[in-house]
């Protein structure tokens, strides 16, 4: 499994979105998130975006007040994951228009759907922004 989890965390360390592609109990999730947030948020701009933690490699990127953290397998391509994060942000940007933390808070489900369109079972299945957004826009129309 390439991608094992995707986290969005604000700079206060509060989780805004958590999507796991393997089952962890709530306690395990909280513990993991806590450790990762502590590790990654302490790092500055001059430091690289890769952190090894437990048996994960964490690739993270900061956009304004929001950190996007992706936990991957050890042999995953770090740069590709950075591109993936960027694609995710761009997609959300296109949908919400200048996306910010609040958009994700209030439209958590949509953010999840975008992720679902992009990643399945830890594999990236869709990299085209319009394709990712089509089903969500359709759903918006019908509801």
């Amino acid at each position, binding site marked *: 499994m390439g991608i094992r989890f995707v986290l969005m965390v604000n700079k206060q360390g509060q989780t805004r979105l958590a999507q796991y592609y393997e089952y962890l109990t709530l306690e395990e999730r909280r513990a993991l998130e806590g450790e990762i947030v502590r590790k990654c948020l302490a790092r*500055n701009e001059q430091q690289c975006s890769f952190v090894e933690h437990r048996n994960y490699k964490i690739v993270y990127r900061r956009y304004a007040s929001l950190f996007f953290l992706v936990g991957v397998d050890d042999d995953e391509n770090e740069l590709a994951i950075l591109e993936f994060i960027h694609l995710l942000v761009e997609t959300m940007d296109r949908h919400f228009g200048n996306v910010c933390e609040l958009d994700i808070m209030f439209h958590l489900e949509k953010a999840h759907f975008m992720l679902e369109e992009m990643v399945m079972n830890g594999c990236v299945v869709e*990299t085209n922004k319009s394709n990712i957004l089509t089903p969500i826009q359709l759903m918006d129309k019908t509801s």
Partner: protein
Amino acid sequence: MAGSSIMENLFQHSLEDLIKAMRLQLIGETTFISKAVEEIRREIKSTDQQTKSTALQKLSYLSAVHGVDMSWASFQVVEVMSSSKFAHKRIGYHAASQSFNDDTPVLLLITNQLRKDLSSTNEFEVSLALNLLSQIATLDLARDLTPEVFKLLSTTKVFVRKKAIAVVLRVFDKYPDAVRVCFKRLVENLESSEPLVVTAVIGVFCELAAKDPRSYLPLAPEFYRILVDSKNNWVLIKVLKVFAKLAPLEHRLGKRIVEPVCDHIRRSGAKSLVFECVRTVLTSLSDYESAVKLAVEKVRELLVDQDPNLRYLGLQALSVAAPKHLWAVLENKEAVVKSLSDDDLNIRIESLRLLMAMVSESHVADISRVLLNYALKSDPGFCNEILDSILRTCSRNFYEIVVDFDWYVSLLGEMATIPNCQKGEEIETQLVDIGMRVKDARMELVRVGRDLLIDPALLGNVHLHRILCAAAWVAGEYVEVASNPFELMDALLQPRTSLLPPSIRAVYINSVLKILIFCLDCYLLQSDGSGSLYSVNLEGGQSELFSAKNDTEATELATCGGLNYEQDVGFNPRNTADYSGDLSVENGIDRAATHGKTFTSTLLAKKNFMHESIVSLLNRIELIFGPLITNQDVEVLERSQNILSLVQLIKEEIIDNSVLSVDTIEKKDTRVSAIINFMRDAFTTELGPVSVSAQGRVAVPDALVLKENLDELQAICGDTELPSSSSFATGGPHCTTTSDASSSNLLKNEESGPLNESTSLIEHRKRHGLYYLPSEKSEIFPDEYPRANDPKSNSNINDEAAELVKLTEQSLLLKKRTTQTKPRPVVVKLDDGDLTPISVKRPEPRDDSLSGAIKDVLLGSETGPSVSRSYPSGKSSRKQKEKKKLSTNDRSEMKENAVDSEKPDLESPNSSSKNHGHSKERKHRGKEKIVESEDHDHNEKKKSGHRHGRRKTHQRAKSPLNVASQTPVIPDFLL
């Protein structure tokens, strides 16, 4: 009812309300959440779908963001999932994917719902169901829903198909038998013209190949086509990952892909792709010189980039290359060293790893020097990281890369004085280890040890205690090469030693004893020199025999002396005292000779062993150790007690010396010197490293009856704690059994009186010998006690001693053999015992079942390669069938195949499918008017060209790869 639900709806808080309200709650968030959950619990029971789904939506929000437990609502989740309204269903599915796991009891209830949704005409419903399945599929779900997934694998709706492909990974994982059904369609999708489908399918294969690459070798041609044709970087990266796994298994594959990979490196503008290519080259294609050169060139660009990410990856790539291509690291030395002062700890650690990979005999000193300077400047964490890697690298494979041990020992000493050093334990181990293994380093060791011991400031640092412990031990053990034993004594006796923990204090005390014995010995040697040295001649041949022995077997000196002595005592008990005195002199001389220059020089320096200095030394020991008799710790107490008694005894005799007449001097002196001698002999026995398997080499003596059941032993030794291995396991042998034997005999022969104590006490002591040192008999070394686990001590001791001698002999022989190359001093190695076996990771059984299934599908029903070779025709025809199927779009035929493969239990499936394949083959052949080679040729390389004449060649422009999936084991695809 209707009215109430409207009311509920009207007054229900929506998710948005909840979030807004939550944002206003600056404090008391937890109470707010629990209130909200209460509300949800009420609402979720509503019969109104709208209310219920909104409640579930809120609950899943709280669960995702605030970690609220939602397992209690699993039944409601199922209810909402089965709603007819898509908006509700969506909420239900989302909640399920978030909260369900293998243990959720309601999983059984959703099979039908999933099946219904998977077969739905609404592709979004299908997609919801697939998404859920990809996350929560269990064995049951996977098994029951495989037919549905199989259908979706070839649906025309790309949106659904790509998801179905991704789901297959989970289904295979849970239910390997699904491979038989789905695998062919999966492979078929590799050739899809839809880039999205290819993306998904390559992702799946990348994961599958990571677990068991060998099974996917036959698919190499398909992967190769993607590698060459695809424009999608993501796909290319995944394909490269697949090849990185496959190439090491089949060298011809490497030859084939190296060019396209290099092409990508040269042409691609995407850093991620280039990096993946570089990594693939360095891991899997490292035999291709030109490719490696190209890759290293790219790595160099990364190393000097502004972006820390690229620098980090560059370093990582280099460390991948390091084992095979050290030149790559050496070429980039500056960049690596520069990274050592990077802002980022991760980068620093990577560069440290690389630096240590670069280290070789010639410049280990320089690199360590540079690193130590960095360590001084760094934060504690990184400092210890540096120290750790220096220690590990230098000690690797018995100090393989260390040539100058004097340098290394002083480096260890220097490390100890770094303020942040927390590697005390490792340094301790190495100091002791070097002492035992490398004779030539001992002088420097003692010097370094002295510097450490003498500094009172170090005693206050807790992290250094272990190092001081080693230093004290070294000082005591190798005191004969010390430049000034009195100085060492001062250091060991300084008042601040009270800061040490008792276990280390005990080592200090023991070292004091050793040094004391050494000093006394030298002193006696000096004073005896004029008097009784010539008495050696009186002994005549006998003693010459000894000296001969001693010369040849210098290290066993003590043993020989002891044993022969014992014999002699038997014959001539009256002579004992005199005789031993003479022996000691002689031994001393021999020792001087064998230790060579260093010893003689120190011996000469010992001319200042004046009477007064010895007396003052004894006084000081008395003064310092006096209070220790009340010490809480048993070790400290006993050892100091022993020394004190010894000191008292010696003092009496030596101080009296000056007043008494010459005759009495001789008599008394010889008694003291006998004692001293024995102790010295015991201490000078060379300690060597002990092989882990040493015990196994000791033959069981005939007289010894070994019991299978050791329960009794438990009763005897249950309360006896062995010294923990971390403290001084290696120190154990200083009470070599030789000394045991000789001194206990000494006891018997010379002063057998005290042994006739109450027998019960003796019994008790024997059992708990570890702690009960014969304290009244102070002239016996504190280390002398029966082996803790040896209930019958005396009878076996001599045998054991002999065995031990043999062992040391063996290790000596070994030493001689392994080290002929001088400048580098001898490092004693024990070939077997010190090596730890490398455990080989075996693939998990679950993977086996999966790969077994895949092999079945890919290679026909043969299980192993060796078997499959013997049935070339059947297999290849089957292969062809598969190929044909891949290249055809004929739906009905596919169905047929599907049915065929869905019933693997059919009678002789192999032959039936064979026939089937043949018929199909013929059909196509006729259609396409292409000459097909005969089945039986298929395994012959030279004919492989013919096979390209099949339909695929048209698509692939004569790529010779086509042959791949026809020969099962190691296909000839690339020739």
